[in-house]
């Protein structure tokens, strides 16, 4: 297989040799998993499903870019194009009850986790139909029903939360229900987040407390305009960071959804069984700019083209066609279905009303007081079941 030069190459502390995003053993100390698809029991239905999901995410993101140009989406918006196989493969490798938390490049995870594209799009349109009623925006996607614990805008913020979600699962099972831990948590982060203190504290805690969280570094080679080797030490062997915390590290090709699934299934099963954390250097690439205003001058067209040649969608398409699972006609039908879904999501979001002004003071506290009108679903947060923890303050009455 061709060896792709990932931006991990170069830099002061990395050897000047390109690394590969495919499953070839390049660095002696990396544990490159190569769980064969067959061993992971991948069915044709699964592969077709992942293919559809990746098509959906890509179409969704392309239309997001368009909507951003049309000013229907505001603020910062980061698209996931190129990285689709990561969210889709990882999500498939765990169970729906397993919590997921990620950073601000989060639309792909939301869709892969099962969020209705309408709710995802409407959130970005700032409409009441959004997954957070238009209060969170592109960087802050939350979906309780699908066990998606956000979308977090501050780089690295989600990494201790990921440990906490897994800690919470284990505590509930073992301490409250008296049974073995049944869940693993997936915590996604960018390669840039490796340099936040919070991440290192979280890794230490996870290693120390036997917390079943999997840190998936979506190593797309860049944090904004900074190539990974300019921002982090040991860029060529990120798993050495994990070793420092006694955590198993893996390198996975994030451009091949079947491989992502197979490797992540192996890793997740092991974490679940042993109740231990893991760290994954997931090699991937973002095709577009960091956000909507990035001319990408820090890298070459050639580099982009090499990765686009190994496109996760293109690769699976070829594989499905070779296996006789996909024809030009069925592909066209799928593409049309996906376009329709996204078009519907946009129409629906356009029609969804803007949030009423009352939302400004709603969801600040679970319990109402002063100007705050409580929260939409207090039962979800134990609100109504709780004893009121403060007396009702009627400012007008108190001061008259």
């Amino acid at each position, binding site marked *: 297989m061709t060896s792709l030069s990932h931006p991990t190459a170069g830099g002061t502390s990395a050897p000047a040799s390109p690394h590969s995003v495919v499953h070839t053993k390049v660095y002696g100390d990396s544990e490159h998993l190569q769980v064969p698809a067959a061993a992971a029991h991948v069915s044709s239905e699964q592969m077709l499903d992942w293919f559809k999901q990746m098509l959906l995410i890509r179409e969704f993101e392309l239309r997001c870019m368009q909507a951003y140009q049309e000013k229907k989406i*505001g*603020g*910062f918006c980061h698209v996931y194009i190129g990285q689709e196989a990561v969210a889709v493969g990882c999500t498939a490798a765990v169970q729906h009850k397993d919590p997921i938390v990620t950073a601000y490049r989060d639309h792909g995870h939301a869709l892969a986790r099962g969020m209705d594209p309408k709710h995802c799009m409407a*959130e970005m349109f*700032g*409409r009441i139909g959004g997954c*957070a*009623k*238009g*209060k*969170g*925006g592109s*960087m*802050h996607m939350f979906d309780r029903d699908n066990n998606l614990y956000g979308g*977090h*805008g*501050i*780089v*690295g*913020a989600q990494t201790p939360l990921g440990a906490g979600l897994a800690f919470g699962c284990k505590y509930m099972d073992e301490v409250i229900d008296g049974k073995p831990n049944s869940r693993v948590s997936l915590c996604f982060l960018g390669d*840039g*987040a490796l*340099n*936040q*203190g*919070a991440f290192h504290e979280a890794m230490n805690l996870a290693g120390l407390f036997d917390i079943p969280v999997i840190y998936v570094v979506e190593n797309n080679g860049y*944090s*904004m*305009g*900074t190539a990974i080797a*300019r*921002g*982090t030490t040991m860029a060529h062997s990120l798993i050495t960071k994990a070793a420092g915390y006694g955590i198993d590290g893996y390198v996975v090709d994030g451009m091949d959804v079947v491989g992502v699934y197979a490797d992540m299934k192996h890793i997740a099963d092991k974490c679940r069984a042993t109740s231990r954390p893991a760290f994954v250097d997931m090699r991937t690439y973002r095709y577009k700019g960091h956000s909507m205003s990035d001319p990408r001058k*820090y890298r070459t067209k050639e580099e982009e083209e090499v990765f686009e040649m190994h496109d996760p969608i293109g690769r699976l398409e070829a594989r499905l066609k070779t296996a006789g699972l996909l024809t030009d006609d069925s592909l066209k039908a799928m593409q049309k279905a996906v376009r329709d879904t996204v078009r519907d999501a946009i129409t629906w979001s356009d029609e969804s009303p*803007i*949030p009423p*002004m009352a*939302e*400004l*003071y709603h969801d*600040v506290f679970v319990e109402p007081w002063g*100007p*705050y009108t409580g929260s939409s679903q207090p039962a979800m947060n134990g609100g109504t079941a709780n004893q009121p923890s403060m007396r009702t303050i009627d400012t007008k009455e108190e001061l008259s």
Partner: protein
Amino acid sequence: MSAVREIEYRDALREAMSEEMRRDKRVFLLGEEVAEYNGAYKISRGMLEEFGARRVIDTPISESGFAGLAIGAAMMGLKPVVEFMSWSFSLVAADPILNNAPKMLYMSGGQFGCPVVFRGNDGAGGQLGSTHSWCVEGLFSNVPGIKIAIPSNPYDAKGLLKTAIRGSDPVFFLESERMLGNKGEVPEEEYLIPFGQAKVIRSGTDCTLASWGRPVHFCMEAAEEMQKLGISCEVIDLRTVRPLDIGTVVRSVKKTGACVVVDQSWSFGSPGSELASQVHRHCFDDLDNYVHRVHSADVPTPYATNLEQEYLPNARKIAEAVRSATYNL
């Protein structure tokens, strides 16, 4: 004749940094994307080329680390300028910037100063949501030992930043993404603006409007509106909130008898509440009404445009406050 030209707020910041770096080799700039990318907001464009990689330094996304590093370098006698892409991201560096920088001189009994400037975008940038829209002056003005500048225009930005860099104490310099492209007159000649000197930018007789940073522009809009109703507003741009030029505000309120304070940070325990309290104290007998305040709503910053607009201070809210403060409802 002094040559005056119009430049953008971002250019004014760059000129201040570059001039000070030419003047003093101890001054250097560090932060995320400041060098090779020319700055996330193009404030440091061209600086790497002029000063080289030893003095214009790209950092990883490690705010706590590089803020602390700058403080250590300042203790060693250097004069770092640290760019936070946004002040919202300074919160992960809260310990070094709040526990080290402002207290070093005091804790060391005067042995180690901390001449470091932290600067970056502050306040809502336009639908950036709850995590990215901090007005950190609400938090940080509570801490003794730091100076805080919040310039509203290119001229003040340049003059205050040069003063900040040349000074001997830690400075938090709060800019605004929404103003970086604003143009204003800036002379070619060198000038410095002292901290603690407010500017009366519109004179009037009926009500004093006191503000800093971006909301100053909303105050000017509101003053214009009020003029149509025959209410004459005096607008004061405080320019720095630490130190706070209370004298200029008091002199104005003694004349107008009414005061509206406009502060984009949250109301509880804010620079706005401090200013109002000081005005109440010094103008107790001069005020015809209590000091009115316009702040952001007391909730996290919402994303949706309509909610965010309602959340932020604006000319309409200021005008309402002026009418209430002057009994013109």
